[in-house]
C-alpha cells in the first residue's frame, strides 16, 4: 500500500482530536498542558506532509514546523511557570479548585 497525503492528514487529525478531547476533559493542569502539546504536534505533522506532497520544491512547510516547535517550547515554559505559581498558592494543580470567579 502506498502511503498518501490523506493518511498523514488522518493521523494528524486523530492526534489533534485526542489533544482536543484531553484539553476539554482533563482536570489536571499539567495534563491539559500535555494535551495542548499533542495538538501542536498534530500541526507539525500537517505542515511536514503538506510540504512533502504539495510543495516538494519549497521548504516553507519545514520552516513553519520549526517555528511551531519553538513556540511550543516557549508556551510550555510560561505554562509550567504559571502552574508552579498556582501550586504555591492553592497547594494543588486541579483546575476544579480554580473557580473562585464564576465562569
Amino acid at each position, binding site marked *: 500500500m502506498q502511503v498518501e497525503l490523506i493518511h498523514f492528514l488522518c493521523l494528524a487529525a486523530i492526534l489533534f482530536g485526542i489533544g482536543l478531547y484531553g484539553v476539554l476533559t482533563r482536570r489536571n493542569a499539567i495534563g491539559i498542558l500535555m494535551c495542548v502539546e499533542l495538538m501542536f504536534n498534530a500541526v507539525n505533522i500537517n505542515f511536514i506532509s*503538506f510540504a512533502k506532497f504539495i510543495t516538494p520544491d519549497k521548504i516553507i512547510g519545514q520552516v513553519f514546523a520549526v*517555528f511551531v516547535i519553538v513556540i511550543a517550547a516557549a508556551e510550555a515554559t510560561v505554562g509550567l511557570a504559571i502552574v508552579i*505559581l498556582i501550586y504555591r498558592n492553592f497547594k494543588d494543580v486541579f483546575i476544579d479548585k480554580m473557580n473562585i470567579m464564576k465562569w
Partner: protein
Amino acid sequence: MQESVKTILENFSLNIDLVTLMPEIIICGMALLTMILEPFLKGDSRKVVMHLTWLSIVAALISIYSIWTSQPNLQSLQFADAYRIDSYSLLFKAVFLIGSLLTVFISSNFLKFKNVPDGEFYSLILFATFGMMNMASAGDLIVLFIGLEIMSLCLYVLAGILRRSVYANEASLKYFLMGAFASGFLMFGIAFIYGATGTTSIVDVIQSSEILSNTYLIIGAAMVMIGLGFKVGAVPFHMWIPDVYTGSITNVTAFMSAGPKAAAFAAFFQVFIVALRPLQSEIEVVLWILSALTMTLGNILAITQNDVKRMLAYSSISHAGYVLIALVAFTPAATTAGLYYLLCYTVMNIGAFTVLIMVEARENSDTNFSSFAGMGRRYPFLGILLTIFMISLAGFPPTAGFMGKFLVFKSAIDTGSTSLIVLVVLAVVNSLVSVYYYLRVVVVMFMVEPELEYRPINFATGIIAALVISMGGTLLLGIYPQIFAFFLNTALI
C-alpha cells in the same frame, strides 16, 4: 532538495529599509534594554525604567508620524515579502502605541499601591506591543503567528503579575490554557491554508489562481476563525474574557482590552479580507452570525453585573461585535471604519479604566458599583470626565464612540445588502440597551451617598496625563473627525 534550497537562497532578497522599520526597532530595542537595566537599579532610580518606556513609545509614535508624512503612499514589502509596511499597518501600529502609552501612564502609581515589582512589567508591555506591531505588518502567516505568540506569551505573564492574589493566578491560568488552545486551532488552520494554496504568504494566497483543494481551504478558514475568534472574544469563544479581565490587575485589564484586541482584529482583517477573499460569501455568513451573537450576548450579560470591571469586560465583548460588522461588510471603506472604531475604543476605554483605577487605588476599596458612590459630589470634574467616557462607550453624539459607530454602520449600509441592514438595526438596538449599564455608573456616582466616610482619591502625575490624553482623544475623534480625514484615504487594499 539540496538544489532547491540553493535556488531559494539565491532568489532570497531581504530588501530591508531600516527607516520604515524604525518603530519596531525602537520598541524591541527598548524592551531588551529595560530588561537588562532593571536588575542594576535600586530604590528611586528604578523610575528610570518607567520614563524610558514612555519616552520610547513616544519616539516610536513620532517615527510613525514622520514615515507617514515623508512617504504618504508607502507600500513596501520587506524581509523577502514577509513583512508589509503600508499606511494601513502604520495606523494600526499607532493605535497599539497609544494604548501602551496610556497603560504606562496609569501603571506607575498603581503598581506601587498594589506592591508589584515594576521592573519586568514595562519590559513585558513593550514586548507585547512589539508582537502586536508584527501582527499588523505581517505579510506572511508565519510572521502573523509569531507576532501573535510574542504578544500572547507576554499577556499570560502580565495577567498573573499580581503573584500573591489567587484571582490573578486563576486569571493567568485560564488565559494561558484558552490562549494555547486557540493557538493550536490557529496553527492547524494555517497548515490547511498552506495545504490548499501551497504558500503561506498573505498576498500570494489570493493570487494562487488554481486553488489545489477547496475543502482544505474551507477547513483552514474555519479553524483560523475559531483561533482568532478566541483572541478577539467573539461569542461562542468568549468565556475566558470576563474571568481574565476581572482577575488581572486593573491596569493590565485596560491594556488587554485595547491593544491586543485591536491586534487580533488586525490579524482578522489580514487573513479574512486579504488572504481568503475567494471564500468571501461563506465567510460573510459565519461572521454575520458571530457579530450578531457577540454584541447581543455581551450586552445582555453586562446588564446583570455588579462589578464595574466585570461590566467593562462584557462591554468589551459587545464592542468586538460592532467591529465585526466592518468585517461582514467586506469593503475598503469598512476596513477603514473598523480601524477608526478601534482607535476610538482604545482611547475611551482606557479613559474609563483610568477613572476605575483612581477609585480602586484607595484604602479598602474595590471595583464594585458602590465604590463609585459619592464620587460625583466630591470630585465633580472627575465625575464629568467619567460621564463623558461612559456616554462615549454608549455611543452618544459629541464623542468618539458615536463617530466610530457611525462610520462602521454607514460603511455597512452603503453596501446596500439587506442582511447587513438587519445587522446594523440589531447593533443600534444593542447600543440603546447598553445605555442602561453605562449610565448606571453615572447614576451611582452622582446620586448615591457613600455608606462610609468618603476616602479621598490620589491624583498622580501619570494618571492626570493619561486622563488628559484619553479625554482629548475622545472629544477630538468625536467633534473634529476632519483632522483624521487622512484615515479615510487609507484602506486595506
